[in-house]
């Protein structure tokens, strides 16, 4: 295991990181118009409501883009780590990492599922791994 850079929280984003610390991946849902939004922010751009509730993400998603940062090296990451943009089924996009898969096996559009990992320095983050989609006719 390893450490991760700790996120910097604000009054607007604290719920999100607190959620991860409690093993929950949360999305803001506007109380006015029910639109979902991410990254966390105070106002709904559709109806300008300041009221919202956190809902728990289903965790199912697809790879929208992915890269392997190679340089510079960081103390927090092993060489070859994968950073990805994940489209959640709810319609929200997240920055995350792909784990448990060789980079050559990753494709854009690949189905993935979320899990939450607690790192040595106490930082909890959402991570993604490949998801086996049920075969046609069995879902």
């Amino acid at each position, binding site marked *: 295991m390893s450490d*991760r*850079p*700790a*996120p*910097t929280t604000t009054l607007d*984003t604290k719920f999100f990181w607190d959620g991860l610390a409690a093993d929950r991946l949360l999305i803001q849902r506007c109380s006015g118009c029910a639109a979902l939004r*991410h*990254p966390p922010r105070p106002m709904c*751009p559709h109806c300008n409501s300041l009221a919202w509730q956190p809902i728990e993400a289903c965790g199912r998603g697809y790879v*929208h*883009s*992915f*890269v*392997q*940062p*190679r*340089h*510079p*090296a*960081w*103390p*927090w*990451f092993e060489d070859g*780590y994968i*950073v990805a*943009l994940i489209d959640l089924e709810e319609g929200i*996009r997240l*920055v*995350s*990492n792909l784990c448990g898969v060789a*980079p050559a096996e990753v494709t*854009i559009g690949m189905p993935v599922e979320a899990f939450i990992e607690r790192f040595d320095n106490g*930082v909890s*983050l959402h991570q993604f791994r490949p998801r086996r989609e049920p075969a046609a006719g069995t879902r």
Partner: protein
Amino acid sequence: MSRSLRNRAAIAGIGQTEFSQASGRSELQLACEAVNAALDDAGLLPSAVDGLITFTMDSSEEVEVARNLGIPTLAVFARVPYGGGAACGAVMQAAMAVATGVANVVVCYRAFNERSGMRFGGTSMAGATALPAWLDVVAPFGLLTPAAWVALHARRYMHEYGVTNENFGRIAVVDRRHAATNPAAWFYERPITLEDHQRSRWIVEPVLRLLDCCQEIDGGVALVVTPPERARDLRQRPALIAAAAQGATADSEMMTSYYRDDITGLPEMGLVAKKLWAESGLTPADIQTAFLYDHFTPFVLVQLEELGFCARGEAKDFATIENLSLGGRLPINTSGGLLGEAYIHGMNGIAEAVRQIRGTSCNQVAHVEHVLVTAGTGVPTSGLILAQPV
């Protein structure tokens, strides 16, 4: 009176320091040297200056620059945000000031020790125990450098349009070819081939190799903006500002606008383009040469599409080494660009555009009427069209 900015301001002077990896001087001194050089180029004394505009990221305070130059009073002082996206925006703000009579002589400047001081590329953060707050939701996942931020956009662009890293490499080859004949360029007399590019190591795989990324550089550039009538009486042939625009669009972030349906485009640049063409009354066919912001090669291709030089997804065919080199269809970055000359946050691109209007570039394009310049990409940005004096 016209309600538009078209031809209501001109760039009358340009100045710069040398571009190096260790200036050995303070950023404030670099700023003062660049401003002084630009005024000298225009044939103006510091006492004529009544406005100073720079980037929010610049460390040299307007009043400190004024104190050093002996500028007695300032009627305008302002700062433009979003890193390199500010470059043409600073000139737009200066043009607005002189066009409205709020000021008469406004100097825009940007100077930093980006190589010997704080390096944007992230290597100076590698030993850090705490990360800056603005890295917020990307840093914990290892998205820690401008190269990595850009690469997630470009990876998807490659996927959508069948673009390869070799397509990006052509931009680097063009820039380095132009830098090779510019004595002021960091990479003077050091051209590269596409093979050199393909052999350079990955910075972010499979998008950016070393030679796709501009280098941090120490240096400063300044530009003097005046009304056209004033510029006409000064030392140099003025570069008229035929159009100037800033642009931010829905869900804009600083380098990480990942939350739009389509992340392959640069809508901020699309907006700037629309405004530039409308204000100038010109089309891409009227541009003889362009300075397209090239901190990383992929966004040069996307800019060609957003600006209308080719259709969406067709930049990989348009952006050949021949088309973009001196003598080609649209020579770009004739000073060597940020990749080959220096990374002065786009301000050196504006200076090169002025030289193209004057006819004094090291890689002079024939019969230049209009030059397009863009500012930083992947951020809220800006652009200019410069023209021959009427």
